[in-house]
Structures are given as C-alpha cells and as structure tokens.
C-alpha cells in the first residue's frame, strides 16, 4: 500500500486544474454529500431524542413554590443554599433531609438517599437534581456541592478580606 505522490510541480497543476474545472459537483462529491446528510441527520436525531430524554429544568426556589402542583411532573434542577439548622441526617441508612433556600423567602424540603458529598454543611451552595413529589418534598437523585473553587479564593475568604 505505498502511495506514490504525483511529482508535477504544484503551481502548474494548480492553474491547469483551475482552468479545466467544470462547474457543479462530480459523482463522488454527490455521494459524499448524501453520506454526509445521512450522518448529520442521524446526529441531529440523536441530539433531539437525547435532549428530550435527559433535560431537567432550572428553577429557583421561589419559582418552584409559585408553580405549585404543576412542578411535580418534570425533572428539576434547583440551586440554592442549605438552610442552617435544618439538616437531619441518618448516617447509618445514608438518608439526609434539609431545606434549600435562596434569596427569596421560601424554603423547600429536600430528601436525599446516598453518600453526602464531603463539602456538605450548613449554608453551603448546593445543586439538587430530581423531582418534586405530591407532598411538596423534593426527592433528589443527585446532590452536588460546588467545589471550593479550583481557581478562586473561597467566598468566606473574600468577605473577610
């Protein structure tokens, strides 16, 4: 499978080719275009189904409270702070309850089962993903704490500066 490269000086070839080129596409180019459209279509199809299957809605605490029952049907992603004094932890069974709050007045109780992240504590920023049940309890499938930033001094330091 040695590939011999043509040894014609490239400038001459260039001009000759440009002069002799016909308008439009050749057969191979058309086939490639068809293949490309099929691949592109497949990728877009996968993207659309993927978005439908895995999207969750970003809401604030206040928005979820305002929506009431209509918030129960979809995947939600809530960002807020852990309300002080609301952490109830059953470490033996890995169950955790706390209230999530933000700048608004409201609070939403969150239930999470599994290992709590190392950084989890009162007043830390958290992200919860899951859904709201009928009783207004947010059942979290994922609980993330914002890592103390890799690149910036953490917030309490900034305050104290």
């Amino acid at each position, binding site marked *: 499978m040695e*590939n011999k*490269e043509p040894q014609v000086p490239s*400038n001459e070839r260039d001009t000759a080719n440009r002069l002799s080129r016909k308008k439009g596409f050749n057969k*191979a*180019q058309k086939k490639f275009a068809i293949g490309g459209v099929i*691949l592109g279509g497949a990728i877009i199809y996968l993207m659309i189904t*993927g978005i439908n299957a895995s*999207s969750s809605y970003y809401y604030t605490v206040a928005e979820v409270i305002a929506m009431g029952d209509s918030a129960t049907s979809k995947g939600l992603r809530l960002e807020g702070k852990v309300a002080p004094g609301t952490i109830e932890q059953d470490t033996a069974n890995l169950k955790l309850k706390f209230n999530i709050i933000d700048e608004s007045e409201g609070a939403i109780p969150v239930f999470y089962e599994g290992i709590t992240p190392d950084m989890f504590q009162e007043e830390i920023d958290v992200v919860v993903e899951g859904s709201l049940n009928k009783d207004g309890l947010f059942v979290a499938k994922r609980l993330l704490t914002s890592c103390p930033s890799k690149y910036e001094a953490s917030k309490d330091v900034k305050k104290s500066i």
Partner: protein
Amino acid sequence: MNEIGEYSLIIALAISVYSAIVPVIGEKNGVKSMVKSSEYALLAIFGLHTIASIALLRAFMTNDFSLEYVYSYSSIELAPFYKMSAFWAGQKGSLLLWAWILGLFSIIVVIQNRNKNRKLMPYVTSMLSVVLVLFGTLMVFASPVFGKMPAMPPDGHGLNPMLQNPGMIFHPPTLYVGFVAFTIPFAFAMAALLSNQLGDIWIRTTRRWTIFAWLFLTFGNLLGANWAYVELGWGGYWAWDPVENASFMPWLTGTAYLHSVMIQEKKNMLRTWNMVLVALTFILTIFGTFLTRSGMISSVHSFGETTVGMYFLVFLFMIIIFSAYLIITRLPLLRGEHELDSIISREASFLFNNLLLIGAAFTVFWGTMFPMISELVRGEKITVGPPFFNMVMVPIGITLLLLTGICPLIAWRKASVKNFKKNFLTPGLLTLAGSITVVVMGVHDFLPWISFTVCIFVGATISTEIMRGVFARMSGGKESFGRAALNLFWKNKRRYGGYIIHIGVVFAFIGFTGSHFNQETEASMRPGDKLTIKDYTLTYYNLKQTQPKETLVHTEATLLVEKGGEKIGYIMPERNTYFLKNIDGSSNPQPTSEVAIHTTYAEDLYVIFASMNEDGTATFKAHINPLVKWIWLGTLLMGLGGILAMWPDRRERKRFEARHTAAS
C-alpha cells in the same frame, strides 16, 4: 522584587503592542529592520515574563503574604513542592504561566524561522503579539498578578487540599501547553492568508506544532480525568461538566484539523476547510477559557465570576470576525486543485472523520450551551445531563473508531473492490472470531458488544497492516523480524506513529466501554462487618486516626479484601480533614476522602471512605469499574505514538525540500 515583577508585566505589554503593529508596517514598506526588531521584541517579552514569574515564585517560596494571590493559595506549612505548584492554582498565576508559555513558543518559532518563511514571519510575529497583548492586558488591568493585601497577614489561607495531588499539579500546565501551542498553527494560517502565501508551506511548517499541541491537549484532558478518578472520589473520570467540555471541544476540532491537513499535504484538497478548522480550534480554546472564567455557565467547578470574562468575550468576537473576513476574502485563492475521486477512497474516509468530529464538537457545544440557548428561545433554563452526551457521543465515537479501522484498508484516490477484499479478509476473520469470543465471555448487550467488536476490528486491521510491512521488509532484504519491525517504524515515523496513536485510542475505548458494567454498593459498618460486591468481600477491620500536623487530621480505615473466597490483601481508604485558615485566625474544616484503588487489567476495586458517623459506624462505598486501566495505558501509547510522529525525519525534510524547490 514584587514591584520588579509588576513593572516587567507593564513593559512587556507595551512591547507586545509594538510587536503587534510594527512588523506589518515594516513588511508593507519593505523595512527589514522593523521586522527584525519585532522578533527581538518577542525575545524581550519572554525575558520580562520570565522575570515576573521568578518574582511570583519567590513570593511563594518566601511566604510573602502581602500579595493577595500568595495569601489565597499558600500557607507557611505547605510543602515546598506544592508552594511551587500553587503558582498556577489560581487565575492570576495561570494567566502568567499561559503568557510565559506563549512567549517561549514565540521565540522558538522566531528561531526556527530566522532564515526561512520570511514573507510569513512578519504576520506571524504580529498575530502572536496580538495574543500576548490580550494576556498582558489581563495581567496588568483586569486581574493584576501582583495585587496587594491591605495588610500583611501572618499566614496564608492555604492551598485547597484537592489540589495537593500530583495529578492536579501537572494537569493545568499540560492543558495550557496544548491550548497555547494551537496558537502557532493559527498564527501561521492567518499569516498565510494575510500575505497570500497560500501553498502548503504554512501547514508543513506547523505540522510538528500541531501534533505537539494535540498531544498535550490529549494528555491534559486525560490527566484531568485521572485526577478526577483518583482524587475527587465519586467513582468516575468524566462527567460532561461544562469545564471538561470546554477543553474537549478544541480537542475534537483539533483532531479533525490534524487529519484534514494530511489531505491537503498529499492531495492539495480542503484548503479552505483547513483554514476554517484551525481558526475554529483556536477560537474554541479562547471560548473554553471564557466559558470557565466568566461564570456564565454554572458548573460544579465554580470558578468564581471574574472580570476577565468580558475581555475574553471581546477578544473572541474580534478573532471570529477577523478570521472569517480573511477566509472569505481569500476564497477564490483557496480553491484546491483536486476533487474527490471516489467515495471509497482514503480521502473520503478522512472527510467522514472530519464530519463526525465536527458533529461531535457541535453536540458538546449544544449540550453545554443548552441552558443559555433554551432560555433565549423558550424563556426557560433547561439543562441536559450526562445521558444526553452519552446518547449522542457513544454512537459518534464508535463510528469514528470504525473509520480508524477502515482507513488503512483503502487506498488514496480510489480503492478497487478486489484490493479492498484482499485487505479486508484477514482482519475480517479475526474480528469475527473476536466478536464471538466477546459474546461467549458474557457481553450480551448491543452497545458494549458493538464497541468491543469495533475495537477488535481496528486492532486487527492495524496489526495486519504492520505485519504486512514487516514481512515485506523481511522478504526484500536479509532483515530479521525484529530489525524489520524496527526499520519499518523508524523509516515511516509519521505513519506508524499514527498507527500507535490509533492503538492507544482503541485501548481507551476498551476502557470507556468497561463503564457499561460498573457496579457500586454502599454500607455503614462496624468493625467486623462485611460488604460484598461482585465476587469481592470486604471486611471492615479497624480505624487509625493521627494528626501529623496542626492543620490536618488523618484517618485511615483498613479493610480486608477477599476475592472469590481468597484473601488478596488489605485496602486502606482515608479521610483527611484539613483546616484552612481564615484571616481572622479561625479555620474551616475541609474534609476530603482519599480513595483506595486495587487495580488490575480486568477491573478496579475502588473504595471510598465516605463518612465517620456519630453512632460509631463508618460508611464505605465500593465500586467495581471494569477495564479502567486500559484508558491510562492508551494514554501512554498515544504519547509514545505522538513522539514518534513528531520525531525529526531527514528523509521527510528532503522530500519536502525537493517538492518545495520544484514548486517555486
């Protein structure tokens, strides 16, 4: 010394403005001395950045907490090694390191091209200087590196314990090197457009830079994955987090570029496309930096909203408009001299490779930006999670891998069916046998089965190809098998370096596919309790707590590991609680868990010491992650192949020079 550093940065900024403007004026008016002086200016900038870096390093080593940056990332007790690495733990030092690397690469380019490419160099110098102006502006105005504390604190805040890990020390600089190195092909591409030197000289000149950049980007990403795996302790290595995606997007377009330039070199096709790709890759490196620095996209890595985001955004728009304008106005000159001859040709397989990589980059872009896009379009912020990425990227990845296997089977221009059949027979049979073996070994789901099958196929085509080459050498001369293999690789470094990289990719895919069979379980245990996962039994043995220094409490758990009833050893996950000091003398406890991993080629047993509980129990989480080791092994192979492909080759240079002189 801090003042010296500060002034160095200001002078370097002024000089970079000079070297951005003057070489172009010099070239237009034929004043050679102006061009030369700008090249010396780059040398001066590098020198000044070096002085500034030494100043900052000195501040770290001497615990000069009067600097805000040193205060934020270091403390008296920090080990000297980590004091050095704290240099790039934060944004300011990262910018300085970035600028320093760019300066270093710039002077290497100047030295490499002192007697050649004289028509391109004024523009290259100018383009590199423009980027240096951006970083200079950031370091002097937006985020002053030598910014001071109001008063000198007695001790620093300390380095985030998660950054006190070798993986984290090398991951950011490796990634920066990759990002920065892509500036070089970009600068040459723009210089080619500006000077109408649109042959393949700019591509040949930057070929090695491109592989170098690609290699470091690959390593940077995989070191990040490795760090996440061994240090973050959530059991995985990739989470499709916006910050990860930010460095993955330029990798995808960079990989596309790496392949499509070969088509331009060999066939003089795709000249416009290559310009677009190299510009896109550079734009994505800037975009990625913007994304992570602007706080626009929320990520678990909260980087903090900083003012530098705006600067990157403005620069991003300037570069997009500038490069788009240049490419569009030069379109007639960029037309290639060849057209695609056949759909079953190596060119076509490269084109499909490009299409898929761009599709993948678009997918990652779309998924990362989806919260913003949906908010603009529908007024609701919607995020897509890892399932979206996996759903789209896994099929794309497997198809790409399949192309990797098909490519060596088909010839340039047009492959004959007869030829294809002949080439396909051996690897085809090997793949069939392998594929059946995979099913027999217990892989019954479609996705992992197809993935393993494609891996085997690629491995088979590449090794058949290599064996064919070796036998050809052996039959021709009197070479022994080993000699022939060595010569084959050494005399076609680019080609066989490429094959080695592809084998590395296959290894990585084997590892990725293993994640389909992940298992996990968790339990709160008292000493003597057992936990079982797959055929492993873990018996919680005891706990040891020590306080090696004032700011650290170290707890180590010991668990006995048995596999299939046989004792294989102890595994010791740890928990460390660090106390980072605040300025008022108080300290916050920051617990981190250190996972313990028992690794084999078949699977990793990954144990996390999750918590110590008030009732005297300890909580452990155990994962079985099959085949992860193959990813790190693949990384090594990619590095090896990359080095071989980059190795200077006299034969190749002669071929190039012969063509070059014939062309002019």
